[in-house]
């Protein structure tokens, strides 16, 4: 399983994701850059420029036409995926940590944005839903020419602690957010009130991911464990124990594929830079870990990163993955034939 090493960031990676078709890989990092690559061979196609601060998160629509990025420069930018042209901008009142398009296919015009608190004057941290302006329904440009105006539909400021991720729930009716104090909250989209709240972990949850049907939720925690949640019945169904603090997780889309089912999850993390000097073996546990989703056993690990893994994502076909590390490298892996033929991975 020879990986492609993508060297397009000069600082730690913050987020990686594939488009729905799986042919493109989007990455962003602390170096203010957003890159797009061919996932088949790791060739860089281009960049999306404009942010003047860490780019924390990005999301691309199902039709791969529009890309939205969340920056620490207090704005989210919508790009035309193909041309790299900025289509719109959402101005927030603090650094943007997270952004995600709503999930309704062919009607992805809303985004959820999580922002941190910057100062008393600017306002508190919040989770907001924005209707993204498009030139079709509003061609009045902003005064600075940033694009059509977007409107805030909802703002939730009554948050337990810093938001790490926030996802749209099933049928866009809820929002699911993870927090730095280990809390997992499900919000009603229409009222902005919490529907369910649970102390999922005792430490920060840097990463959370949801299945395509939005009912299965995986949280990865700094306390070295990951948990799988049934959002339909609102309960924890599995716990995965590892020996390192976790930063990243991903669910294999093949868990409910028609054939070649693979009940797998990927976890990544490792000792953060300030702790590395305390390890005797000099090894920071930077491998990507492949676990069985149901039996919660480690199936294997992939080494290569020399800094903690910050973000990890399965390919939409479940036939490979990309991981982004603190050291600035993206590793793009395509699974070997044996991943499909070996009974061990069943």
């Amino acid at each position, binding site marked *: 399983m020879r990986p492609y090493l993508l060297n397009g960031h000069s600082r730690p990676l913050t987020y990686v994701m594939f488009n729905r078709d799986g042919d493109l890989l989007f990455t962003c990092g602390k170096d203010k850059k957003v890159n797009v690559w061919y996932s088949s061979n790791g060739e860089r196609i281009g960049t999306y420029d404009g942010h003047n601060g860490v780019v924390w998160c990005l999301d691309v629509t199902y039709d791969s036409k529009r890309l939205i990025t969340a920056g620490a420069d207090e704005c989210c930018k919508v790009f035309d995926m193909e041309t790299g042209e900025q289509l719109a901008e959402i101005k927030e009142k603090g650094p943007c940590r997270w952004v995600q398009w709503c999930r*309704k296919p*062919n009607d992805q015009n809303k985004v959820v944005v999580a922002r941190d608190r910057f100062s008393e004057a600017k306002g508190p941290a919040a989770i907001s839903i924005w209707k993204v302006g498009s030139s079709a329904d509003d061609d009045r440009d902003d005064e600075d020419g940033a694009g059509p105006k977007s409107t805030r539909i909802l703002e939730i400021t009554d948050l337990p602690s810093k938001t790490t991720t926030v996802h749209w729930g*099933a049928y866009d009716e809820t929002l699911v957010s993870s927090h730095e104090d280990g809390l997992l909250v499900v919000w009603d989209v229409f009222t902005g009130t919490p529907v369910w709240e649970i102390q999922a972990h005792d430490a920060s949850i840097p990463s959370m991911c949801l299945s395509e049907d939005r009912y299965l939720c995986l949280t990865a925690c700094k306390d070295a464990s990951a948990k799988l949640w049934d959002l339909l*019945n609102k309960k924890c*169904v599995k716990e995965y124990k590892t020996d390192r603090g976790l930063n990243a997780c991903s669910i294999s889309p093949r868990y*409910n594929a028609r054939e070649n089912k693979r009940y797998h999850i990927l976890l990544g993390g490792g000792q953060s830079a300030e702790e590395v000097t305390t390890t005797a*073996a000099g090894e920071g546990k930077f491998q990507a870990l492949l676990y069985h989703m149901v039996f919660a056993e480690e199936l294997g690990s992939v080494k290569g990163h020399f800094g903690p893994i910050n973000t990890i994502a399965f390919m939409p076909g479940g036939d490979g993955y990309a991981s982004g590390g603190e050291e600035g490298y993206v590793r793009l892996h395509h699974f070997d034939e044996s991943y499909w033929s070996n009974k061990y991975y069943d």
Partner: protein
Amino acid sequence: MPPESVKVQLADLPEGEEDLLEYLSDREECIEDYEDEGEKEHTFPNTVMVGGAPCVGPEKQEKLQKIVLKLFERFGEVTECEMITDDNKQGLGFFFVTYSSADDAKLACDNLNGHALDRSHTFKAVMLDNYDQIITRTEDYRPPPSVPFFVREHLWWWLNDERQREQLLLRYADETEIYWHDPVERAPMLVYNGSRERAKGSKVWTEFRAMWSPRGSYVTTFHRPGVALWMGEGFRKAMKYEHKEVKHLEFSPDEEYIISWDGTPHAAKYDKAVKIFRTQTGEVLRSFPTPMVAPKGGEFPHFLWSADSKYFAKCSDKDILVYETATMKPLMVEGKTAPLKFPDGLDRFEWSPTDPVLSIWTPERGNSPGRLVLIEIPSRRELATKNVFQVRDAQLHWQSRGDYFCLNVTRTSKSKKTGHNQLEIFRLREKNVPVEMVSLRENLKLFQWENSGSRFAVLLQDETTHAQMIRFYQMKGRGKGTCEIITSFDISSQINQVYWSPLGTHFVLASLGSDGTLLFGNLSADGKPDIVHKDEHFMVNEVMWDPTGRYVITAVTVPMVSGGASAWRYNMEAGFAIWSFQGRLQYKAQKERLYHVAWRPRPPALVSPEKIDEVKKNLKEYSKNYDRIDEELKRSKREEFQGARKEKMDEFLEMLRAMDDARKDHPSYDDWEDGWDDLEDQIEWEEIEEQFEEEIDSKMEVVADS
């Protein structure tokens, strides 16, 4: 002669009276049975005499009767309870109590004797049957002395394990635990962890050391007031040995005696620093001040036992004093204590592992050479001596069967700048104990006899290149008189220890304290070496074979007394691993503050060496049974595992089904499905079929010639 019995047969009975037969006994000597019963009346095994109760008048007797009956009935069913009164119906404070069973009566007697009814009345109870014996005692009767001792029951219970598993002792953090090592289960299975002792209020079984006795019969734990001994299947406490602040302990090889030491230095001259106990009774047989020299180096032991436990010896820098265990007194010559004297000084001594033979080394001093002498005890006969000149250092190595003894000396050249090693090998089993010299050009790092074998391994380092190699030597048979090199090969210079299996043949080469390289290998009977597996256990500082040579533990342990930087260094990695003799990892675990891990030793085998050879030859036959048990166990494990997996999977799939149903039942389902369809339609996918044809090769052939 028994009286002729009358046999009544069915046919003899008158017609219509056949059922009479049922009333006739078919046993013959029934009359004698009745006589026996008459005789029984002379003993009263169910009756207890209880005295010492209040003497009360008739008016209070009923109340007293009630009270005591309640008490008596605690021990069993009382069939009769008679209060003895004088002619005036005045109570004499005395009862006959009869129980329905003799066991209950015995129990009641033991418990009632000495029972305080109230402040001024204490019961005295005896079995009625013992009455005669007690009143006929003469004046000078003394009760037999009661020496506390324990009965050695189920001492070797663990040897009867159906699957012949090994036990191991773990002492880490605040825990003291005994486990079975189970190669099928992989993870060790807990046998006992001091739960009883901890339930009694103390938080830990012991906060100090815990160790096995040399034959594995007991576990000893160290406590502030002394040492405790535990044994049997339940690890019950067998004995306590009082010795304040005890630091070290050594059993005699037969486990009959214990020597303990409280760590007082020799200079303190504290005369109870060393105590010798009889294991079974806990008596202190002798105590000593700390002797001057610990002959094996280190701080303990000061007394060395002979292999048969008949003697133990201590030394100073000038003499050796041998004690006889039976009398706890030094060996006498013509009625006088007579130490073995070495006026030129004494460096170290060691007993043969099998015979009462002492090997004693006196270092070189002035013009007198370094001298090795083998002395038989108690005859004091010198079996052999050897003088060596220009010696810097010497090591003594006994082969485990006591057949050979090797004196390993480092000699200096005349200029005293360089040194080289020389081995002097003594053949104890041959007449006049011949000595043979093996001279080595390289630096000798390590010498190790093969256990119960006639071969040995040496680690040698080339002086100039510092390359290291391991070399094996073989002692040729009786009378052939030579020690030959079998083979040698280069190994990493990190390797610094050789551990032979207790049965010989197999060995582990280890690099202790550094990179933790482990090499599992063997040396076949015809001298072919084979390294079968290479692995590593980072920072390993202990390697132990189990007594059967099947498993190896490698461990990173930390000293119990906090030892500065190195303890901290090791603690990062503290833990142990269990390997098969071929180096297959069976279990590995990190254990915070692991102080001690040890296989349970086994007592010496009782079967003859011939029988052992026979078993070895027909190993397949013998192992069949064990293989079968293991196989069955593995199968059931597998089935259980697969069953559990299936259950988990079914449960998970059920959950996924419910999610799918929820998705499909949602009011917006159709709307969203349409969205997906639109999405797919809008993307301009085009199915293109392309055919490529490529001519790989062409060949012309004439099929038919016309």
